[in-house]
């Protein structure tokens, strides 16, 4: 299969580095402003839930962190797959950059979920609950990917071997999503991504979606900064990098 020509520019380290450097600050500013507005709206302005009371306000952060973890894994698997098939180094660099971010957000989803579980389900954690187990597996897949990479001194070999794990593990992502529909679980079903539309009041839906956008923007901001760091690590002493540094200094 042949890749389109415009795609090849994304295989060039200087092009991607410059592009990331230009986009990242805007994503950061956008994400932080939305986080502030959405956070204030969710914590202060949004009404109290008639069933759960005030503790429901965790809904403005918990599903978002879980979604970022799953999106990070999907992105990691697709990039690693592209890197594996077409031997594009930048694609591997994207995969490596997504892994620690995804791991941290998945950890955050597990912890905020446990905190939310105590007052609503009466327990922090339930072993054997499908949604919880597959989310925990996602966390271990991220850790396994990073540990596997760390086992190789040779970066190219680490790229290729870890890509296989990333691609195989991606089946877990749809399983997490559908686990609440396929099995009996303590976890509630989808509230927003439903065929019949979101079952949430507009006054709650607006801050919910603002927080989704905020977390997404912050994720890509951090991803681009990590990608820049990864490109630099893969191209030590490159002339384009010195020129770039000189230009941005002056």
């Amino acid at each position, binding site marked *: 299969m042949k890749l389109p020509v415009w795609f090849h520019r994304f295989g060039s380290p200087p092009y991607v580095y410059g592009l990331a450097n230009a986009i990242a600050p805007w994503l*950061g500013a956008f994400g932080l402003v939305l*986080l502030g507005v959405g*956070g204030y709206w969710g*914590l*202060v302005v949004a009404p*109290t839930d008639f069933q759960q*009371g*005030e*503790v429901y*306000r*965790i809904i403005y*952060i*918990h599903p978002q*962190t879980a979604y970022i973890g799953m999106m990070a894994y999907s992105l990691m698997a697709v990039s690693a797959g592209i890197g594996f098939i077409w031997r594009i180094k930048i694609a591997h660099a994207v995969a490596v950059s997504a892994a*620690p*971010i995804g791991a*941290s*957000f998945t*950890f*955050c989803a597990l*912890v*905020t979920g446990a*905190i*939310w579980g*105590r*007052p609503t389900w009466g327990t922090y954690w339930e072993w054997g609950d499908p949604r919880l187990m597959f989310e925990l597996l996602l966390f271990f897949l991220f850790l396994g990917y990073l540990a596997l990479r760390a086992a190789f001194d040779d970066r190219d070999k680490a790229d290729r071997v870890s890509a296989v794990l990333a691609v195989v593990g991606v089946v877990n992502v749809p399983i997490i999503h559908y686990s609440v529909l396929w099995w009996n679980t303590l976890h509630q079903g989808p509230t927003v991504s439903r065929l019949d539309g979101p079952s949430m009041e507009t006054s709650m839906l607006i801050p919910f979606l603002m927080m989704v956008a905020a977390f997404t923007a*912050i994720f890509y*901001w*951090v991803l681009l*900064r*990590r990608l*820049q*760091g*990864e490109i*630099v*690590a*893969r*191209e*030590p*002493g*490159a002339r384009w*990098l*010195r020129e770039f*540094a000189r230009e941005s200094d002056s």
Partner: protein
Amino acid sequence: MSEFFSMDGDGSYVWAAYGITLAVLIWNIWSARARLRRNLRDALSDRAEDESPRRPKVTQL
């Protein structure tokens, strides 16, 4: 104001969840920035010139 922070008795759950999430966000932003700075410093040092990938790799026997 204290009524807001107590969250009708659920304050400890809500604030713990928001606190951890904020900590994760700060760690992400800080670590990405720190890594980029460290790698740039290493890559732009004079020593890095010798490690340029253009040079053929010498494998030790």
